[in-house]
């Protein structure tokens, strides 16, 4: 297990390094980094000062060294617009995105797994057909339009919930969160549903496929033959086998959720990193875009790592195979 972990961390580090190189040389390929990294509104003296400070007058490979050096110290440049270190800016917006993403995934799992199991175990029942049709529509509809429709229905026509913003927050361990105040929760519900619908369709599909397959296995019939209650057969014997693919895919999808939060946050004016990214792109605030990119890559690599480890905990067969290799 330890050897496996070390190897896995090594791979993760390698991907980070490669991505850093791609981002850096990508900036070169796309255009002059002077244009990209320096505030165009600065005056000439200031520009030259920055060029020297950032080392943009040095050869490419030396600059790459600076870039990597900055990276290891968490220095990803300074936002032109906010005049704050880009990384600090993004990290201050991250809790809002994570709160949204996790609530969305939670909703998707809590609702998606039971619905998927119903559809998988009783495939011919009318309600199963309703569930599956709903999941196809949820899968097909673009995320942002779902968001608009939620706003139209619950905020404009019914007037039950606010259309955007984060609402009142309280600090939890020094991090502002919305879900602990009624106002904040009200603001959180619609965006979270927006995130959840798409993932829920995925969870339903996965669970249904798993349930209809697992239900036919001998060990399920054997569990029944041993006189176990239907609840135990369903909740332990079937569910635990379905959870393996669901957890794997959901884990990998966590990255997607954070990425798609760009859309949801834009629709609901939710002040997370996605909204920040779109605003920064609009304002040509490149250091923030670069910092966002590096942070996302980092999150993705970390998520992949965690999923792999979770997978080997859930499925004892994988554990053995890896332990041996």
């Amino acid at each position, binding site marked *: 297990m330890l050897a496996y972990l070390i190897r896995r961390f090594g791979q993760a580090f390698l991907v980070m390094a490669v991505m850093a190189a791609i981002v850096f040389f990508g900036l070169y390929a796309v255009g002059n980094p002077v244009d990209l990294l320096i505030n165009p509104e600065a005056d000439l003296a200031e520009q030259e000062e920055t060029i020297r400070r950032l080392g943009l007058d040095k050869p490419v490979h030396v600059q790459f060294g600076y870039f990597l050096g900055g990276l290891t110290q968490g220095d990803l440049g300074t936002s032109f617009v906010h005049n704050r270190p880009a990384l600090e800016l993004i990290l201050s917006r991250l809790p809002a995105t994570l709160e949204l993403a996790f609530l969305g995934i939670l909703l998707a799992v809590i609702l998606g797994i039971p619905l998927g199991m119903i559809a998988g175990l009783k495939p011919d029942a009318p309600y199963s057909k309703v569930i599956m049709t709903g999941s196809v529509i949820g899968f097909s509809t673009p995320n942002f339009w779902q968001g608009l429709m939620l706003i139209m229905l619950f905020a404009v026509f019914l007037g039950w919930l606010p259309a955007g913003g984060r609402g009142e927050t309280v600090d939890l361990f020094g991090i502002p969160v919305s879900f602990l105040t009624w106002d904040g929760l009200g603001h959180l519900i619609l965006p979270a549903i927006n995130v959840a619908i798409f993932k829920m369709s995925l969870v339903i599909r996965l669970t249904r496929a798993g349930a209809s397959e697992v239900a036919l*296995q*001998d*060990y399920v*019939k*054997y*569990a*029944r*033959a*041993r*006189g*176990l*209650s*239907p609840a*135990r057969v369903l909740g*332990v*014997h079937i569910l*635990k*086998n379905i959870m*393996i693919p669901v957890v794997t895919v959901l884990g990998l999808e966590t990255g997607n959720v954070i990425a798609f939060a760009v859309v949801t946050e834009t629709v609901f004016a939710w002040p997370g990193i996605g909204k920040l990214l779109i605003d920064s792109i609009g304002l040509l605030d490149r250091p923030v875009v670069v910092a966002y990119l590096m942070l996302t890559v980092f999150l993705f690599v970390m998520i992949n790592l965690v999923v792999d480890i979770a997978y080997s905990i*859930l*499925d*004892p*067969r994988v554990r*053995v195979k890896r332990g041996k290799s």
Partner: protein
Amino acid sequence: MSDPVLSVRNLVTQFETRAGIVTAVDDVSFDVGPGEVLGLVGESGSGKTITGFSILGLIDKPGRIAGGQIVLNGQDLRQLSPPDLHKLRGDRVAMIFQDPMMTLNPVLRIDTQMIETIRAHRDVSKARAREMAIEALGLVGIPSPAERVRTYPHEMSGGMRQRVVIAIALMLEPDLIIADEPTTALDVTIQSQILSEMQKLLAERQTALIWVTHDLTVVAGLAHRVAVMYAGKIVEQGPVDALLDHPAHPYTQGLIASIPSSVPRGQRLVPIKGMTPSLINLPKGCAFAPRCPKTSDQCLSARPEQENLGSARTLRCFHPSEVSS
């Protein structure tokens, strides 16, 4: 003779398929007494496994038990409510499945699966259930059971796994065990080991056993009585020696003639010509008629009824061989 543990009368089990109703078990009747071993013999598709599942009430849609009685210790199982049936399965009637690789849930440890079975039927503490599980594993000849109980199924060999399944079946001292080809998937040496151990344990406890198999040689060494099934019906039934020495039904004769050790060295084996019939389009007359050497017009137009031959033998055939009694 004492009252039978299990008495099956005119059991009919049907499956609704797109091509029509398939009668997989057709008018099957037999008794099993305490400590008695009944060999239920037939080719695949003859309905022997479905008979076993019917007794436990494990027939799933589109199948259903269409008629007959299943009386266990004087109680008709078909009249029981589902919760009462749960209580009975694994406790009074245990089942051993064919493939030990497929029967144990791959993601649950052996102890989890044993303890859950005990606690589904006995009001004991987890610690006590664990002791019982370890004890049962020791009984079936698993070395260092206290350690093996903590492993996952895939960490054991096929023979070990089948011992675990047998231990689970014996653990709660049931009145009846239904074993569906439990040794077919194992090596010959392990097969005979397990057979003799089981025989010993069952005799000690006076447990009744239904041994479902396609292998007459296994039955010859193990069973007290034999019932031969063909296309859903029991075509011949009787005490093992009488039936094997003087088979009356042409199908039984064919089965015996196709066993390698039944004919003198050098003489040709005689396979039964033709194929197992599809249950969807059974002939109007005797189902065996197309393959039978003695077929007459009567066989093609009518189905033979079950007759009593005396000395506990029954038969369904218009042209039986003489049975010396």
